[in-house]
């Protein structure tokens, strides 16, 4: 689990790697807690080879927390087979999803301000 500031002080980026499941969720869980204050959290999944509903639930829970404070959790770099879990459960329509982390950060810089409320 790598996390870094996202170019703006109110944006944080988490880079997920490997296989995310019940037994390996602890680092993501604490990273999400550590970054709960960031207005915008971008979770980059380009390095994620596997994710099941345990990972999905963590991200959905973080999304609700950020939403409640006027922030957002956005995703980037979903690859097969992770993309399939998000597609089948409908989570693709719930999160703002970007091709890659650069697109996510560009979008935050240009087309909309930070702290934007996602409907």
């Amino acid at each position, binding site marked *: 689990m790598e996390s870094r500031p996202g170019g703006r002080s109110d944006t944080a980026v988490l880079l997920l790697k490997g296989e995310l499941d019940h037994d390996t969720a602890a680092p993501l869980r604490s990273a999400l807690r550590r970054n709960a204050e960031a207005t915008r959290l971008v979770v980059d999944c380009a390095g994620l080879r596997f994710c*099941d509903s345990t990972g999905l639930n963590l991200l959905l829970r973080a999304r609700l927390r950020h939403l409640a404070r006027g922030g957002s959790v956005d995703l980037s770099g979903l690859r097969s087979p992770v993309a*399939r879990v998000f597609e089948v459960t409908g989570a693709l329509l719930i999160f703002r999803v970007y091709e890659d982390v650069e697109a996510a950060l560009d979008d935050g810089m240009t087309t909309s301000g930070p702290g934007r409320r996602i409907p």
Partner: protein
Amino acid sequence: MTGRPVPPAPSRTRRYALGETAGAVRECRDLTRQALREWFGPAGTPGHVAVDDALLLVSELVTNAYTHGGVPYELCLDRTDGRLWVQVSDTSPERPRPHGRHRAGRPSGHGLYLLERLSAAWGWLPRGEGKAVWFEVVVIPGLGDDDRPTVEG
């Protein structure tokens, strides 16, 4: 009424005891991946949607067994013609109970929803004081009794 022998169990079965160690969920995926490759050849390798789905659903069942199911104790993999049948046994008499209507944004209830959506069939059965939860996926569609699963892919 007796006389005719009971047909044999599915041609190939693998049983694995589940322990308390962290890493069991992934280990179950790995065992399933290995069995799929050995049983179904190229069609049984990751990247094929049935295989990816099977690994995901194994993960869901084993996770549920650890989080809801008392003590999980067995992963059982069965091959029948072009299908994989997976059972995960735990000691809890509680049964899997799909949450009401599935809601994409709610951080719960996705496990059984995925099971329902991606398996060919699923269910549970009593086993000792507890139960086994099972699912089936079609790895090689339309494979009849006489086909051989080695040419595809």
